[in-house]
C-alpha cells in the first residue's frame, strides 16, 4: 500500500481510495486482512475517526468486512467489483477529459482515434 496524501481532497475519501487501489492492485488479496484503523492512524498521523470514516465507505460498498475482534478483511469478489465500478466510471473519468482537452488543442476525432490506436500498439 502506498499512501500519498494531498491536502485538497477530504482525507477520509483518500483513505478509502488508497485502500481500494491496493485491493484493485491485489496488494491486499481477497480474504486477507487489511491494516487496522489504529495502524493506519499511527502510521500516517491521521485521526482514528477519520480513518474509520474512510474504512466505512468500503464496508458500505461491500469491499471489506469487519470480523468482530479480529479486524477488517477483503471480501471475496471485491476486486471484480472495483473493476466493474471503474469500467462504469471510465467514460466520466477519462473519456470526457480526453475529448475536452483534444478540442482545446484542435485535435480532430480522426486524429484522436489514431492516437488511441497508437497507444494500443506501443504499449
Amino acid at each position, binding site marked *: 500500500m502506498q499512501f500519498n496524501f494531498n*491536502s*485538497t481532497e*477530504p*482525507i*477520509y475519501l483518500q483513505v478509502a481510495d488508497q485502500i481500494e487501489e491496493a485491493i484493485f492492485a491485489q496488494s491486499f488479496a481477497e480474504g486477507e486482512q487489511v491494516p487496522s484503523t489504529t495502524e493506519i492512524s499511527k502510521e500516517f*498521523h*491521521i485521526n482514528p*475517526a*477519520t480513518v474509520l*470514516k474512510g474504512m466505512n465507505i468500503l464496508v458500505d460498498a461491500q469491499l471489506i468486512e469487519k470480523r468482530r475482534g479480529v479486524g477488517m478483511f477483503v471480501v471475496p469478489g471485491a476486486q471484480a467489483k472495483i473493476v466493474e465500478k471503474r469500467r462504469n466510471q471510465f467514460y466520466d473519468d477519462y473519456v470526457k477529459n480526453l475529448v475536452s482537452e483534444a478540442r482545446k488543442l484542435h485535435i480532430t476525432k480522426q486524429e484522436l482515434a489514431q492516437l488511441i490506436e497508437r497507444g494500443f500498439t506501443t504499449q
Partner: protein
Amino acid sequence: MSIQLQAITQQFHGQSVLDNLNLTIEPKKIYGLLGRNGAGKSTLLNIISDRLFPTSGTATLDGETLHDNDHTLGRLYLMSEVNMYNDRSRLKRLLNSTALFYGAFDRDYATQLAAKFDLNLNQRFGKLSTGYRTIFKLIVALCVPADYIFLDEPVLGLDANHRELFYQALIDSYTERPRTFVISTHLIEEIANLIEHVFILDQHQIIVNGSVSDILDRAYMITGPDTDVTGYTAGLNVIGQDHLGGITANYVYGALEDDRPIPDTVTIERLDLQKLFVNLTNAKEATTHVN
C-alpha cells in the same frame, strides 16, 4: 459528559480578549484550537484550567464548576509555555513528584518516551534547551491520567524529527487510551489530519466550530479569468482573493450554487485547513463573512 463554557468574557484593562464565548468540549476527541497571535488561545486555555478567572461567565465539567474545584480540575491537564518547574530539579524527581500529584501517572510510558526522544532524565530542568523543555512537558502531558489534556503550543522549539515523533506518540497514546486533547498550534498543516474537530478563535469569538471534514466540505477555491470567477461566485460567501495577471482565485466558505453553470474556464478546488484559516482570519472585517 463534556466541558461547557458559557458566556465567557475576559477583559484586560477594559479591553476585551474574549467576548461572550460559548464552547463545548466533548470527551475522547482530538481538537485543534487555531487563532492568530494574540487571539486569546492561551487566555481561553488558562480560563478552562482555572489559572485565570474570567471577567464573567462559567466553565463546568460534567455540570460541576471548574473554578476552585480539585475534583474537576484533577481531570484536566494544561501543558503551556510557562515553565513552572524549578531549574535545579532533576527530571526524574519532577516525574516522581508529578506521580504523587496524579495517582495513576504512567511512569513506564514516561521513561519509554524519554528514551525515544533521547532525553536523559538525570539532567536538571534548567539545563535543557527550549526544545527539550517542551519535550519534557509533553512527556508529562501524555502520561498524566487526566481526561482532558490541553496542549498550548506543544511543538514550540521542536525540530521536524521531534515533531513527527510527538504526533506519533500522541496518536499512539490516544488509541491506547482515548481521551480529549485540545491542541493549540500555528503549524496547522501538521495537525490538520490529526484533529477531528476545529475551533478557530478570531475577533474575541469562536468563528469556526465543527468537524474538520464538514468544514472543509464547504471551503472552495474558484480559479479562472477575472470576469468568469466574479460571475460564478457572485452572491457566494467570498472570504478572500488572489490575483495574478488576469487570473483570479476566489476563496469561498459556504455552499456553492448547485444549479449555477460552471464556466469551462473556471476550476473548483478544495481548500485545505491552513488556507481556509488564513483567509478567514485575515485582518479586514473577516467576521462579517462568517456564518
